[in-house]
């Protein structure tokens, strides 16, 4: 009994400690929340963002801000994808100081599909292949100079790629 009690309280203390750390870091982060804090956060695999259901939640979890549509983000995706398991999608942009590019499929069970870090010296252009459950908007997010820009295109899917 004593042992299990100890185990419990130790675990509890850890959780409390975690909560305190979060509480301490939380407000402190606000003044620096633009570029550096997010750059640091981006170094880890963004598990929560990939688990988010909707596109808006995923963007919020990944970047902590919202994107504005921009004509400078060029999203290249097919009008109609016959096979939803392999949809070639690419993004390029003329924006300067790009630090990351992300792809979201709004109607997928988890909207965020892929997120790429673009270090200085790497061109802001990425091509990849994604799965689409059904006809959906595809959203490309470009993070440039600490701001988010987006482009959206609807891709019609005849055979879905995310379920039976």
């Amino acid at each position, binding site marked *: 009994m004593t042992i299990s009690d100890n185990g419990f309280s130790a675990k509890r203390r850890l959780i409390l400690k975690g909560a305190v750390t979060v509480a301490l870091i939380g407000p402190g982060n606000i003044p620096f929340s633009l570029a550096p804090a997010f750059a640091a956060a981006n170094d880890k*695999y*963004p598990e929560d963002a*990939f688990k988010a259901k909707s596109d808006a939640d995923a963007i919020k979890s990944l970047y902590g801000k919202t994107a504005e549509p921009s004509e400078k983000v060029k999203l290249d995706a097919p009008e109609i994808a016959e096979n939803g*398991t*392999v*949809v070639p999608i*690419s993004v390029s942009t003329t924006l300067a100081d790009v630090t990351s590019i992300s792809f979201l*499929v709004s109607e*997928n*069970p*988890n909207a*965020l*599909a*892929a*997120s*790429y*870090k*673009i*270090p200085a*010296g*790497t*061109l802001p*252009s*990425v*091509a*990849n*292949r*994604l*799965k*689409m*459950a059904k006809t959906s908007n595809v959203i490309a997010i470009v993070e440039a100079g600490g701001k988010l820009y987006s482009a959206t295109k609807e891709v019609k899917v005849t055979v879905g*790629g*995310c*379920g*039976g």
Partner: protein
Amino acid sequence: MASTIRVRATQSGDTTEVQALIQHPMDSGFVKDAKGETIPPHFIQELTFEYDGKSVFVADWGAAVSKDPYVKFSFKGGKKGDDLKISWIDNKGATDTTTAKIQ
């Protein structure tokens, strides 16, 4: 075992174009097999490209990336004959690494 990673890095002018193709099931966890049982999620989470000790491209992937994933990007400053190091890790902790010469 042969590497799961196939890379072609070609330098032209001041940029190096990199194309990579990786063998991986990229199971999403939403698909059922013939018996109607759900295939558990199994997908690459992080793919890193390093040149000259620095990462030039890092991909964070979810389950929505297609089976046997393909990715293409370009970076400035690669030299012919230099090594490009590519590595991935999936959600089960499996990894693979390879190096490719820039052509």
